[in-house]
């Protein structure tokens, strides 16, 4: 034998390893099955349960599987889709929703009022920890469904909430139900256009209020497409047309949502013709994209709004003239042109241009680049001589933060440096503890197309994203009055008055409005993207 035994054994082991590695491969992909099918690139969604989806990837997939109560026209005004009519009382408190009859889920179940009520109750129930549950917070009874942790954040178990159902939801008959809000809200119809308000079929639940295992991997919806097989995590989600769908019928027979880890890889596939739509061209490819894609590179408005928050809890920033001077010290246009290569536009208002009621340049003079005046104002207000701008390094913000700092240095003659934090959560934690972080890089994308969705979370005293501690009771009450106004037009008036306060006080420094910069292959035409950064699946078609 002389050493041959182990030789053989080791060779055998190596062979087995190779075999194991080799034989599990083989199947090559793609959408060859349907000639009239397309592929759209996404990032792995967080979840495909409607009430747990708060990012645009999951939301895009859900838009093909579900049919919403309302959709939005080009002026961001809602119109009914799965609903036949949505009416409300004078105070905008009680909303009656009549759904169109004859619709079914893709498993054949008819869509009834119960499907909506059960889905919303599930989403709102605190212990289910659904990420989109805050959408239901306007409905009566939401607070009773939330558990309160007795010791804040700790070992003691939270108590079970008092209620399991929203008291504000009432079934009238099979196709009609009533929603009672805890306070009147003229924009409620728009809110219901969000994913969290999709109905769930009976098949989604294994018991009352308990979701069936695996529903999230193969959701059954009331939409124009149904999922083929299951969500293949990190790989793809294939949907195919539902036969005789009652609503608007899309022009393609199927969509493969291809999942990418990296926008660069996605762009490579788009270029090679393996992918039909990329919804976000990576910034490093922007320079070559117009050459690569020609007129297949397109832009459309999106709701993203990038801004820098002032730490108003710090003494140095409490004088509004300091804030105004800093805003005047920077050249927004130069930043969007040089660093973002025109993929974003300069922002000089406090709400995005995509919402009804937006007025251009509400910030006025305060957002105009005027280094002389800025310097003078800054000196008079005795602004800080050392400025920091905190940002999270994982979001590609370094380039523009450094540029902004250079502009501030040049205009005001003060020190300015970017202060990197590993992650947004690290930065926000410091901000919450009111540590000295300097100015804070932040951004916002809307959940529903109303001015209120910018004004409320970002600037009201108890706004969910008001990290910088801005508070102004006149502003708060104007926003609230707007929400309770009788008509959308009256609401907008109040909200615009509120925005004027912001322009005067500059709690944040508006920087840029986002755009969808997307590209598509030669195979598809009529590619449009909506305000929610989603491809319009009803319009896209295969080029003949």
């Amino acid at each position: 034998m002389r050493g041959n035994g182990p030789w053989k054994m080791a060779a055998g082991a190596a062979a087995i390893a190779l075999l194991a590695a080799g034989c599990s491969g083989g199947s090559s992909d793609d959408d060859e099955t349907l000639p009239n099918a397309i592929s759209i690139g996404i990032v792995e969604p967080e979840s495909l349960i409607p009430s747990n989806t708060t990012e645009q990837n999951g939301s895009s997939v859900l838009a093909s599987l579900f049919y919403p109560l309302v959709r939005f026209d080009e002026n961001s005004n809602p119109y009914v889709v799965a609903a036949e009519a949505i009416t409300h009382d004078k105070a905008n408190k009680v909303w009656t929703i009549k759904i169109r009859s004859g619709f079914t889920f893709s498993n054949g179940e008819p869509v009834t009022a119960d499907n909506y009520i059960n889905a919303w109750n599930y989403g709102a129930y605190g212990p289910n920890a659904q990420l989109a549950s805050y959408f239901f917070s306007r409905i009566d009874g939401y607070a009773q469904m939330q558990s309160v942790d007795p010791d804040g954040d700790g070992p003691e178990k939270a108590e079970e909430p008092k209620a399991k159902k929203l008291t504000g939801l009432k079934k009238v008959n099979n196709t009609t139900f009533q929603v009672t809000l805890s306070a009147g809200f003229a924009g409620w119809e728009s809110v219901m256009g969000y994913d969290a308000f999709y109905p769930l079929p009976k098949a989604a639940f294994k018991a009352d209020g308990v979701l069936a295992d695996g529903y999230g991997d193969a959701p059954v919806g009331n939409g124009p497409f149904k999922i083929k097989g299951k969500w293949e995590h990190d790989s793809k989600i294939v949907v195919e047309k539902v036969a005789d769908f009652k609503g608007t019928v899309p022009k393609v027979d199927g969509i493969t949502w291809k999942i990418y880890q990296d926008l660069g890889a996605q762009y490579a596939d788009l270029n090679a013709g393996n992918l039909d739509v990329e919804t976000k061209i990576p910034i490093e490819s922007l320079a070559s994209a117009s050459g690569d894609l020609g007129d297949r590179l397109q832009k459309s408005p999106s709701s993203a709004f990038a801004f820098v928050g002032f730490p108003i809890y710090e003494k140095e920033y409490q004088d509004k003239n300091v804030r105004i001077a800093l805003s005047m010290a920077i050249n927004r246009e130069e930043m969007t042109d040089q660093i973002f290569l025109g993929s974003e536009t300069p922002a000089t208002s406090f709400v995005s241009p995509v919402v009804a009621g937006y007025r251009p340049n509400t910030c006025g003079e305060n957002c105009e680049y005027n280094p002389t005046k800025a310097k003078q104002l800054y000196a008079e207000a005795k602004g800080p001589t050392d400025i920091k701008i905190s940002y999270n390094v994982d979001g590609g913000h370094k380039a523009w933060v450094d540029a902004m700092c250079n502009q501030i240095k040049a205009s005001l003659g003060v020190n300015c440096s970017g202060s990197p934090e590993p992650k947004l959560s690290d930065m926000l934690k410091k901000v919450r503890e009111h540590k000295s972080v300097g100015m804070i890089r932040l951004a916002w994308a809307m959940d529903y197309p109303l001015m209120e969705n910018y004004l409320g979370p970002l600037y009201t005293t108890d706004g969910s994203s008001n990290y910088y501690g801005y508070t102004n009771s006149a502003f708060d009450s104007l926003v609230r009055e707007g929400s309770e106004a009788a008509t959308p037009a009256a609401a907008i008036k109040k909200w615009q008055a509120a925005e004027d306060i912001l322009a005067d006080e500059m709690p944040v420094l508006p920087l840029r409005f986002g755009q969808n910069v997307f590209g598509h292959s030669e195979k598809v035409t009529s590619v449009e993207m909506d305000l929610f950064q989603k491809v319009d699946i009803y319009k896209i078609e295969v080029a003949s």
Partner: protein
Amino acid sequence: MFRYIVRRLLQMVLTFFGATFIVYALMFAVQDDPIQALVGEKPITDSQRAALTERYHLGDNFFAQYWYYIKGLLTGDFGTSMTNRKVADMLADAWPVTLRLSVMAIVIAATIAILAGVVSAIRRGSIFDNATLVVTLIVLAMPIVVIAPIAQLVFGIKLGWFPVTAGRDASLWQLLLPAAVLASLVVATELRVTRASVAENLRADYVRTARAKGLTGARVIGVHVLRNSLIPVITLIGVDLGALMSGAIVTEKVFNIPGVGFNLFRGIRTEDGPLVVGFVSVLVIVFLVVNLIVDLLYAALDPRIRYE
């Protein structure tokens, strides 16, 4: 021999638990606010925070959390990732493609390294030797973040020779380009080691004896020299295999392969303890098994080495 393997396997159990404990402790130490990391840039309500803290036992102390984890592990349950997927499912999705990719890369690298290494050792100072020296230096100097996108652009998009991306259910053909890119990481060192080792052995007494016996050149090189020269190379390949599996983050990203490197990166980014520990645990096993195989190969290559 058999006793040796049993002893090694027992050692592996200890190493495995030690390694998972350390990784778990490290993940616990860096965990700052995984719930905020989970929801990204969105605000989170107190009620959601309470429910998620409960679900993932985040409120408990370190030992209680580790106990939950080990209890699950011993019953074959790798736990649930913060993305609410079973870590076992994620392992099953990610490992096959990474294993294929790294084994292909190793086969490519080893073939090139050993062939070219032997030839340059025999013809020291020749044009071939110098040319390989230059080429390997260039490859060694180029970071993978440069090689991978360039290879993709040139061979995938411009020339169209290879598929541009691979994906999870990639065929061997789709994995060829990424595997070649990955092989470039290790081929240079393996080649240099082979060359040095063969060159040294060529001067050894036993080679002169073999030549004097009148053996053919092919037999002298192929059997006598190579067998002795491969010991350091095999060690290197064994270590490389492990490194390629865990370290293919860039290649997997560029070629869109949702494998182990990608999952580790995602887990660390989102402070996803169970995900990272699960993947590292399996990596530890792979390292241990590969090293065992390497040690057994020593015995095969050098009859003087005996394990008891």
